[in-house]
């Protein structure tokens, strides 16, 4: 049976239907589920750890289920004990030891024993890893060694196993798009390694992936990349990431029909997020005196490398009146902020996977303008959920914005055709169904 979702637009009901056999009857025994993440939302706010934690929380909330969450902490505050419980019962924290980023191997000699003890104590039926960073791919084999009957599930975030460049599949250092990994080409990005090193890296990761019963990918695009890399297609399913639930819904403000076209950028002001493209498009429109298009930038640049910060600062001094820098934003305010603009721009110059921002935009009924590649292009259907523009092409972005500003009907139409965000329950159900099947 095919578990890979077809190209039909995902919908809450669709997930339940497409290929999963699920008689909606209560199961005799509730599965015991351990969700493992490379971090913890109390420690960092990345999408992966939030998704993992939300999943745990959602499952735990279902009556009769047993769930645990294991996160990691890179800060060395509790290093004398490898695994501890600072956040209460049901949640564990591993204090990270020595980790090899090249092949995702955990060198910490305390980890195997500590993790084994934890598994023995909790006896999960399903161990679901979101990320193997900080934990090491050996952990999959470890689970199988300690609990031969358990099932191992791994959610893939980024193209880490494929690409040594932060799993982003862009070259180093030019950051051009990369379509396929190949040891002969990888050494051009990383001159300190040899082809043999990349050969061994892949073999090492694949060796431990063989212990994984099923993989989950947030996007079809990412799944396809892994399948091209060598993952058996019948071992991958596409299930969307969970995001934070919205706060109490305020009054919903829909897109403005007239007035200036307000665009919003949400996220880290980094090169890969395409912030340069945005600035260039804005400056072009400023030159053409199209002040009816405004740019609201919500995000932080202080985490960026020093050189890039310098570049950004220089640019920001030259911005026109159509750009407003709003600084970083609090996650809890994202809905209000998104509703204060008409359209979200995601000009990322890398593939992306399943950006949080897109889900949030959809949830707020805002169309998304994004680059025409990767996970973005999958999640945002051109002309249905939003609009595409050629990746990195600031002029094309500017023209698109002009077109939309001149004909507001285009935007209105799109807000009707855009799909709704998946509900949390739907996603959780999809996961549970998957576990059931294994």
């Amino acid at each position, binding site marked *: 049976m095919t578990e890979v979702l077809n190209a039909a637009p995902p919908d809450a009901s669709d997930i339940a239907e497409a290929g999963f056999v699920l008689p909606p009857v209560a199961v005799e025994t509730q599965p015991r589920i351990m969700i493992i993440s490379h971090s913890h939302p109390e420690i960092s706010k990345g999408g992966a750890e939030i998704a993992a934690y939300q999943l745990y929380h959602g499952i735990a909330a279902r009556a009769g289920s047993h769930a645990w969450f294991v996160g990691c902490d890179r800060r060395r505050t509790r290093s004398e004990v490898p695994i501890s419980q600072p956040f209460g019962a049901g949640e564990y924290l591993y204090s990270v030891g020595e980790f090899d980023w090249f092949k995702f191997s955990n060198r910490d000699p305390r980890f195997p024993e500590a993790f084994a003890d934890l598994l023995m104590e909790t006896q999960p039926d399903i161990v679901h890893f979101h990320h193997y960073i900080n934990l090491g791919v050996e952990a999959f*084999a*470890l689970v199988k060694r300690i609990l031969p009957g358990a099932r191992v599930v791994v959610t893939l975030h980024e193209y880490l196993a494929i690409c040594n460049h932060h799993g982003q599949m862009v070259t180093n250092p030019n950051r051009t798009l990369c379509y396929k990994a190949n040891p002969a080409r990888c050494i051009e990005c990383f001159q300190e390694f040899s082809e043999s090193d990349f*050969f061994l890296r892949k073999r090492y990761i694949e060796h431990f992936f063989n212990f994984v019963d099923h993989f989950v990918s947030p996007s079809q695009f990412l799944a396809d990349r892994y399948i091209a890399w060598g993952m058996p297609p019948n071992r991958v399913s596409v299930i969307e990431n969970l995001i934070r639930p919205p706060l109490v819904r305020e009054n919903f403000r829909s897109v403005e029909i007239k007035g200036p076209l307000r665009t919003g950028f949400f996220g880290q002001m980094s090169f890969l997020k395409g912030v340069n493209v945005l600035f260039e498009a804005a400056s072009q429109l400023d030159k053409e005196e199209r002040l009816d298009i405004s740019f609201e930038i919500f995000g932080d640049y202080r985490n960026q490398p020093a050189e890039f910060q310098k570049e950004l600062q220089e640019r920001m001094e030259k911005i026109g009146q159509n750009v407003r820098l709003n600084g970083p934003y609090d996650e809890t305010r994202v809905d209000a902020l998104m509703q204060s603009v008409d359209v979200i721009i995601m000009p990322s110059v890398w593939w992306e996977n399943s950006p949080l921002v897109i889900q949030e935009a959809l949830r707020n009924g805002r169309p998304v303008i994004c680059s025409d590649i990767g996970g973005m292009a999958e999640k945002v259907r051109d002309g249905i959920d939003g609009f595409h523009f050629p990746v990195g092409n600031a002029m094309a972005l500017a023209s698109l914005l002009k077109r939309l500003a001149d004909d507001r009907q285009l935007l209105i139409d799109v807000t009707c055709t855009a799909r709704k965000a998946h509900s949390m329950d739907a996603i959780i159900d999809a996961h549970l169904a998957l576990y059931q099947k294994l």
Partner: protein
Amino acid sequence: MADQGIRRTAADRDPQAGGDLDELPDLVPVAFDEEIYLRAFPDVAQAIADGVCESPLQHYMEHGRHEDRISHHSYLLLLHGRQIEGHIDFYGHNALAGGWVFCGWSSERWTEAQAPKFIAHFKNGDLSGEAISAFYHRDGLLGRGSGLVLYIQGRHQPLGALVSIDIRLSGEVLTIFVESNARQMADQDVAASVRPLLLLDPDAENCRELVLLLSTSGYGRLRRPLNTLDGFVDLCGYHLASGGWFFCGWMTRSWDSEAGPDKVSVHFVDGTLASDETVTGFYPRDDMEGRGIGFVMFVHGSGRPLGSLTSIELQRDGVASFVRASTASQRLRETELVARLRPIIGQITEPESNVALLSFLTRHPYTGVDTLSALSDRVFLEFDELIACPPGGLAVMGWMLAKPGVVRAIRLRSNTMNEPFDFESCIKLARPDVITGVGVQHGFEDPQCGFIGYVPCSTLSNADMYMEVETTQREVGFRKLPAPKLDGIAAIKRMLVAFDVRYNEVPRAYDRTVGPAVDLLNRNRLANRARVDAVEFGHVNPSPRFTVIIPLYGRLDFVEYQMAFMSSHPGAYECEFIYVLDDPPKRREAERLFNSVHARFQIPFRALLMEQNVGFAPANNVGLRAANGTYICYMNSDVFPGPLDWLEQLAQRLEDNPDLGMVGPLLLYGDGAVQHEGMLFKPLPEFGNWLFPDHPRKGMRPSGQTGLRRHICITGACMLMRRDLAVEMKGFDESYVIGDFEDTDLCLKLYEKGLNSAVDLDVQMYHLERKSQASSAQTWRMNLTLYNAWVHQKRWADLIAVHPLRNGPVIDRQITMGPPNR
């Protein structure tokens, strides 16, 4: 003897002999000679003294005649044989020849086959002894006979006038009577007179020998080979300045420069001094009474005390003769030695040895000051490095400038060392810096003035060493050598980084210089066994079927991969893995890694941590000593399994094929191309035509062939064999330095024992062999590989030449061609 004379016996009365001499009444016999009578019958002198009679004649007339004592003439007649025509024109004693020389003519000739013996009768005595006779052509004889030169060994005595010469041949005696006009000559005159006659026909039998006898350099050749020589040493002593021993004594014969001994060894109680260069000069010794000739011999050597002298051995054509020492032999200190020998050397007649010996005797010793610059013919000599190769050699690196023909000999010396330094056999290096710096202004242009040389030494001292340069003018200059400071790998590297040889230069350079030096340096380096610490992770199976020995150097992270990949195989947990860390600076890092790896993968293993870096062969041997498996597998750290039961599969091959000593897998690169599927040897002309291992089909896709395939050798990257066999072979040979050729060496040793090596094409594994760097900074690694190739070549070239698999594998009939690229 009581009667020297002859008494007539009854048998002598021969009626046909011409009357009974006794019947000459009262007549004084013709040619009665009182002196002869007295000499023949010593009691006559006593009788006269007692007053029995007043004179010998009276005695004869009154007593002797009646006692049948023969008178002189008949005495002589009986003594002599058949008279032949002939005469001796002149004669004399020659001291150098050690005997008497007679020159005349004879009507009859004899040959060596008749074994002639000669007696010369003088008025006052007889002379007999070792003799040589030669004939020469004399015009004046008009066919009546031939010229004759006769030599009889004997000392110079006043014997009076020559009377006759007896020639005793087998069967008869011939006699030549000598008239009173025969001239007796003095020493040099007789030689000078005879020599030209002998040279008239130098190819006539014995003429040349006689010439030699009489020449200034010959004595007593006497048709006997040198090895029957005998002699004694009267005095000896060590002369520090010239760096050698002087011996003075006598021998029964001398030699000239072509016929001298091949080899001279001086035996002492505590050791033997073998010489490379000796000088011997001969001088006449009257006190030897013709039995021998005096000699002075100089032998280069260290002054190492060797106890008393026992003998000097002279060897020629493999046979030895000895000049002996005795309790009478004196051992003199240097000053007295010089004083005693100086006048003796002055008597040596042959000019070359005279000059040479005198120059040795009068040399000045080394006082720690360089004197090279004081030579009248300039010689420039500088040293960059001196490397001690204990226990038996020194490697010298430097440069030298000298015009051709100026330098006669160079010796490497210290208080206790004295070894010849052969500049010509050194490796020559280009030193343009020397030419521009020093050479040009003194007229030297050839930049090939640098050298690396090896000096084998009988002893090695720590004392100050210097080079002694002797010019052809017999001048000597000294140049101090730097103190040796490097040893072990640093020393080896220093030598190997300095030169670059190709083609035919290679065997020369290695046979003479690099080979012996590196061999000693390496042996020395490994002499003290490095300490090994053993750490066990988990519980290693005490009686495993397999032991895998993996040496580690440089990269350690491969351990993670190896252990990870093998952790899926249940058999891995029963296996004895031994990691030998041959990289002491990485010890802490390795310990951490091992701990982490064991915690993660749970495979038990042993880690052997070397205290010093020892190299591939010793490291593996350390692992072998610790191993307990029935089978051992030598494996490189960058080899990774294909099928997880690779050990079992390979072992099965050994069990099924009793002719196999060793088996290994097909090895691939990461991209799937062949890294190794058996080896061949190829001679490389660029490197002395030595045999180097070659991996056919390296870099190609696997051919698809399956099954077992025998090869002359397989790679040490992964080889499985029975442990008892590995132990019998003593692991890998530690003569190879750092790592190279040990694997083929082992395969060939097995072949000598009758066992083959094979590749199992069904077992494919990965070998991520690092590409070798070809940068110039790695010249020394190239030269090190050449050293290992040299060792290997000397040992195995002949065997490889006749090995049935030297051109490739024999295809096993059972092999089938499967589909390509499985």
